[in-house]
């Protein structure tokens, strides 16, 4: 026998074969790791201030000055309450919103929800590319150059990107939203006046005013963000123990989102509204009009903010939508699968980016109408999603003792009902008097 060493732990050589398992740190999961640092709530709310949102905020600031600022506080509450429901569902059930809808409401309901969701999101993606086109025009770049490059960048960034680079880019993108804060500073508003406008409600029953208010709510609380937010917490593997942190994250997100809205409205209100330039049609025009009033820097920052927001949302929206649709319908999804394994996922993703960009490239494409239409789509779609969310988060068998309380339900139902009423008004106007909503 060979001599055993004195410290001889000679025996076992157990099964460690599994160590060679491929570490499939695909982008979506690594994306979740990224979210673990910043938080899905903050990211979601930031992405939510996209091209359509910024347009609406600028237009309402220019048209009504500070008269709509009072709606920010109730909107923050509605945004927080609705986002918190999703965060809570994600944390407690460990499942995405489309998964839950599928499991609780069956195939057919899910199918229709996913088809509508896809179309509405396609409208949103198109709107993001419209934002790219509009902002690049301010910098003197033609849309036929800017949009294909943007689509390609988005496509490559997500499908071929090294995660560290993507993370760095998104993190920087988040801080770029501060450019609106600087724009607002350069506009030299009377801050006491703006704060008073936030606290003191001002209401008018003019059709235009109501429409702007509806659009404001519709863009701030976008339906797709709920799917994205819940998936964020699920992918991040946040358990019930970290619920308090998740809630804080959502609260921070809601407040920071509203701060950006506040700055944009103040910026436009202090300059365009005060000087009588109330007839701007979109964010790009707002940026142009800012130049003589607040200087070149205010214009550049404003346009840059729009470009940043559009690209940011255009990177996340198609990916999120393809994921949600595939998960709901039971197709393989995720960037760790090869094209052959998850064809539905890749086709949906590519279709969203390509169609979205192509629509903008049609000569004479009505960019503004596309923006408005996508907002109308969101507005119609939102109450539907909200109702499903409320129904699900009231289920004891899913949520246990974390189901909605009476205060939550009240706020959630009131928001939904207000949204439904405003949407009906908006739709009625769109049909009876299309020019009133910019068409």
């Amino acid at each position, binding site marked *: 026998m060979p001599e055993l060493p004195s410290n001889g732990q*000679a*025996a076992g050589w157990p099964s460690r074969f*599994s160590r060679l398992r491929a570490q499939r740190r695909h982008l979506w999961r690594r994306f979740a790791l990224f979210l673990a640092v910043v938080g899905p709530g903050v990211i979601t709310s930031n992405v939510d201030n996209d091209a359509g949102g910024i347009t609406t905020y600028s237009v309402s600031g220019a048209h009504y000055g500070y008269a709509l600022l009072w709606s920010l506080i109730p909107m923050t509450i509605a945004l927080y309450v609705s986002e918190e429901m999703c965060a809570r569902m994600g944390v407690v059930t460990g499942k995405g919103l489309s998964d839950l809808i599928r499991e609780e409401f069956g195939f057919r309901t899910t199918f229709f929800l996913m088809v509508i969701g896809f179309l509405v999101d396609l409208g949103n993606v198109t709107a993001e590319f419209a934002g790219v086109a509009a902002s690049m025009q301010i910098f003197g770049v033609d849309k036929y150059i800017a949009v294909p490059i943007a689509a390609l960048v988005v496509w490559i960034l997500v499908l071929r990107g090294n995660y560290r680079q993507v993370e760095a880019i998104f993190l920087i993108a988040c801080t770029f939203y501060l450019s609106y804060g600087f724009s607002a500073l350069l506009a030299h508003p009377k801050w006491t006046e703006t704060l008073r406008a936030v606290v003191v409600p001002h209401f008018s029953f003019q059709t235009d005013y109501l429409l702007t208010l509806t659009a404001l709510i519709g863009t701030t609380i976008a339906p797709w963000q709920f799917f994205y937010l819940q998936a964020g917490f699920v992918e991040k593997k946040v358990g019930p123990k970290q619920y308090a942190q998740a809630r804080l994250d959502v609260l921070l997100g809601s407040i920071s989102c509203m701060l950006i809205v506040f700055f944009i409205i103040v910026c436009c209100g202090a300059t365009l509204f005060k000087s009588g330039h109330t007839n701007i049609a979109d964010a790009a025009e707002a940026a142009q009009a800012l130049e003589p009033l607040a200087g070149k820097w205010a214009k550049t920052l404003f346009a840059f903010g729009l470009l940043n927001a559009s690209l940011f949302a255009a990177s996340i929206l198609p990916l999120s939508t393809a994921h949600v649709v595939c998960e709901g319908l039971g197709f393989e999804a995720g960037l760790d699968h090869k094209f052959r394994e998850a064809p539905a996922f890749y086709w949906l993703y590519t279709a969203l980016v390509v169609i979205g960009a192509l629509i903008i490239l049609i000569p004479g494409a009505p960019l503004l109408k596309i923006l408005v239409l996508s907002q109308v789509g969101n507005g119609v779609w939102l109450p539907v999603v909200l109702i499903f969310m409320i129904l699900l988060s009231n289920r004891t068998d899913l949520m246990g003792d974390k189901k909605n309380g009476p205060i939550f339900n009240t706020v959630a139902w009131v928001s939904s009902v207000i949204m439904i009423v405003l949407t009906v008004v908006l739709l009625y106007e769109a049909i009876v008097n299309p020019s009133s909503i910019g068409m």
Partner: protein
Amino acid sequence: MLHATELLGADVNDAQGNFVGRVRELFIVPADHPGRVSRILLGRGRYQPLVARYDQVAAAEPGKLSLTVGEQALEPFQPNEAWLAVGKDLLDQQIIDVNGRKVVRVNDVNFDDRRTNGNVELRVSQVDAGVQGAARRLLHGLLSPAAIRRLQQRLPSTLLPWDFVNLIEPDRLRRVKLRIGSDKLNLIHPAELADIVEELSPNERNSIIESLDEQTAANTLAELDDRLQPEVVDTLGREKVGDILEEMDPDEAADLLAELPPETSKELLEELPRDDAQEVRRLLQYEERSAGGMMTTEFVIVGEDAERDEVVGWIRGLDLNADQLDTILLINKQAVLAGAVTIGRLLMSDSGVQLATLRMDPLVFISPDAKDKEVFEMFDKYNLRTLAVVDANQRPLGVITVDDVIKHLLEKK
């Protein structure tokens, strides 16, 4: 063949041809039979729902079911946890495809109808996770069953045999009641199993890991995403985790314990047998990204003057995983590392040869405090599969194997 979509909601007539109600649910009673529809729940609007037994079904076709008995022979419905509901527990839920090693969502359930003495028994044949089932769910009620069947012939099918699916039931007690075994799961490679449970919700994940045998659970837990390990350990209970830890390699156990809160890992260490615990403690001292953090303490070591046949005979007597054995370390009389011999060299050598003559040149080893980068470079430079880690007196502490190197390289990227 019949589909759950066609049967749920079907009209039910009794032996006399009178309408009794509509099929609201199909129940499999795993305690009686693993795949037979043993009970059928008949909804009757505002009247009390009734239950038909499998031997009371005379005929079944899409949208229509007839019974061998009259309405008065049917029992009233009592909910039963031990019954598997095709509509509620299967349709639209996720299941594990054991053959494909992945989680899929159920679009429809297919049944064989077997004619036995005067009645028809429905047995689950396959689970439909593809577009055929999806199309059926979508179009059912809008087109006739025959038209749907014609249409679906043109669609690709994704059918999983009933014997090769595993249900994901988050409730552990119900899992037992439904007799959901883990024998099929134990056949899946632990790395693939880890991928599967990572996709599930926390409750589902914990309930599945708990149902595995200890060896599989240990390997699966070792492969699991670091962020999920603490939570799984938390819910499994100390005793089970202790058993699982005993099944793990010391280095895997150390990796796992390093992820846990210090108190938990201290408690768990105290429950391990003393030798194991000591080894794991020693491994825990090293930086994760050092040679010591990458090594395992289980390796084969023999004296340098041993002869080839002796060694082969001795190794055969050891209980070890042959697939993992590729290098033997040699030591001299002072227990100092004296060389390394690959199994290939051993295989090619003559029987009486001394192991010392087979050793590779040069003698390479590394200190446990060396950085991971040095380890990678050494593997690359010398084309190693195994590298000895030695203490200050050049006595072997452990080995780093090439699989650990690849794992760390990927993590770094």
